[in-house]
């Protein structure tokens, strides 16, 4: 469970004022299954769910191994990543609460795009606080956030007190400041809700649509199920339904679960398991997780989505219990894997998702013929051209 810090106002109490209420209920529910509301199911269908689950036969041939490699492709969603799964659910619940507007923060912009589209589909206004450095470098996502009808501010902005406190024209911004701005923005107006993009349990619950679909689509159970980990939502979404079945003895008895993280933010392989703030500034309740410290500053890497300092509490627990293994990769080796995959399977993978590819390749080389690997390709990289451009130059 989340907890409050020693000092200051209760962050837990704050949640009730900013989050859609159904999400808080989901965060604390004892239920194993939460039905997907009809409107959310319809929205999922409209944006292309179920997403494909494909066998990477050309990749297998290039590797020259007799290992079967499958991938679930969340980049098929119109924003290009799995983030839309929870954004749609959250926007729906915000609307159920009577909200007319949602707000959030975004770094590289995946989450901001997902929230903007979800808001558009449910007829809500959206306001996005985007770290200023990304606002300047990820112009594609800024543009498409606007195309979806949302308002996007570089953070620190001059429209919140927090923003004005930090504001300098050259301030690069941080996710922590952007979160604080979004929360302040929500609190300062009527009928607004804050939508968080990862880490919280309800986010992982919403993402479990990935794994639930994949289980239906799998022609064979994998020996390894692999995903990359930023906060843990795509990994959890893909693997938890399988882990659940394994724990309940309903299948996947031989399946191992492997989390691929960035060496730039190796919380699962090198972090501490303890209470920490999920945000840099400490406006949210503490959660127990593998963390590098909420003030950890990762080196700049292409996989902006993996630079997060912690891993979702449930994922951290599973890691601690030995049900999930983790491995960290440097971006150079990840990029090689990404290029190999693109040339074999056609999809330009997101830098984040490429960590899962790299892990899959490494595992494939060690497994006996006939083994099966499944990984989650959480997004495509068509909007990460800056990463690919720098990588080619390097």
């Amino acid at each position, binding site marked *: 469970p989340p907890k409050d810090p020693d000092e200051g106002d209760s962050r837990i109490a704050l949640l009730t004022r900013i989050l859609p209420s159904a999400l808080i209920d989901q965060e*604390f*529910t*004892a239920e194993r299954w939460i039905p997907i509301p009809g409107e959310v199911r319809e929205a999922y269908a409209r944006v292309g769910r179920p997403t494909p689950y494909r066998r990477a036969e050309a990749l297998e041939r290039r590797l020259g191994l007799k290992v079967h490699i499958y991938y679930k492709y969340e980049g098929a969603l119109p924003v290009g990543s799995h983030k839309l799964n929870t954004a749609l659910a959250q926007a729906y619940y915000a609307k159920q609460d009577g909200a007319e507007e949602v707000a959030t923060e975004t770094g590289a912009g995946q989450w901001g795009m997902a929230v903007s589209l979800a808001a558009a589909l449910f007829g809500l206004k959206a306001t996005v606080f985007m770290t200023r450095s990304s606002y300047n470098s990820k112009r594609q996502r800024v543009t498409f956030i606007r195309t979806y009808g949302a308002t996007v501010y570089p953070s620190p902005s001059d429209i919140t007190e927090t923003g004005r406190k930090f504001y300098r024209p050259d301030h690069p911004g941080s996710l922590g400041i952007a979160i604080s701005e979004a929360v302040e923005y929500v609190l300062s107006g009527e009928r607004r809700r804050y939508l968080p993009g990862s880490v919280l349990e309800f986010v992982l619950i919403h993402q479990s649509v990935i794994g639930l679909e994949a289980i239906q689509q799998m022609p064979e159970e994998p020996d390894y199920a692999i995903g990359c980990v930023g906060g843990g939502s795509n990994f959890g979404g893909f693997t938890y339904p399988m882990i659940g079945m394994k724990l309940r003895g309903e299948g996947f008895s031989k399946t191992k679960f492997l989390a691929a993280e960035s060496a730039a933010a190796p919380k699962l392989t090198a972090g501490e398991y303890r209470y920490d703030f999920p945000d840099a500034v400490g406006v949210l309740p503490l959660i127990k997780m593998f963390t590098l410290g909420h003030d950890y500053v990762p080196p700049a890497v292409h996989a902006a989505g993996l630079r997060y300092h912690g891993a979702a509490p449930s994922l951290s627990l599973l890691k601690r219990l030995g049900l999930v293994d983790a491995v960290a990769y440097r971006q150079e080796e990840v990029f090689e894997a990404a290029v190999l995959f693109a040339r074999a399977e056609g999809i330009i993978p997101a830098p984040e998702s490429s960590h899962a590819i790299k892990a899959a390749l490494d595992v494939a080389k060690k497994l006996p013929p006939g083994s099966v690997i499944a990984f989650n390709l959480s997004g495509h990289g068509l909007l990460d051209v800056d990463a690919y451009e720098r990588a080619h130059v390097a």
Partner: protein
Amino acid sequence: MRLPKPGLGVYITAQWPNSETFRSLLSSLDQVADFVEIGVPTTNPKYDGPFIRLSHREAAVKGLGALQGLDLPKNAVLMAYAEDYLGKFDALARAAAESGAVSVLLPDLLVDFPEALEEYVLAVRRNGLDPSFFLPSKFPYALAGRLASYNPLFLYIGLYAATGIRLPVYVERNIKIARQYAGDVYIVAGFAIDSADRARAIVGAGADGLVVGTAAMKILKERGLQQTLAFLAEIKEALRSLNI
């Protein structure tokens, strides 16, 4: 031993708001409460909400010393954080037994130190106490079954994230689910129960008992002992009327 059903428990931090008021409350509780949960003051009451957290800070004596010379009522359960007593569960259980408590509840045991579960059970049993367990409302079903197999005094379900902070959570559903997986174990629900209506709803959903903490302590601090007892009596009456 067995607690009555439905049972009303009262939480209070030891020696709070001061030694005198605390003792007065303790000696009056038999009238209105079926059991009492005594918080062992700590410097780090990590799962408590702001009000109880403050009570720990205000307690003059921290730790087991706060139990010195107390005459605990029947069905008293100590509440302490496992973190403060790692490797010293036996001493904790002995002190609890010596002060007349029937159990020690460690709310952070399963969350933060699941590997210490067996050690805890052995320590309390060795000292003639029953174990009690705390579970958050989102719990592994298999764990609930395992805990039930230790035949504890109760399973305490934390309805929300922290004491005294109500969230928009459908707690009745969670209690029902806990009931399904905990078998016959006595289920206590707690966190932010502040009215007879809430108490009725929670017992109605399947809890065997409940604990009132923050709400009663606020009244004690602001309006005194008699008002506190009256508030508790109202809840007690509400439970009795359920005829379970």
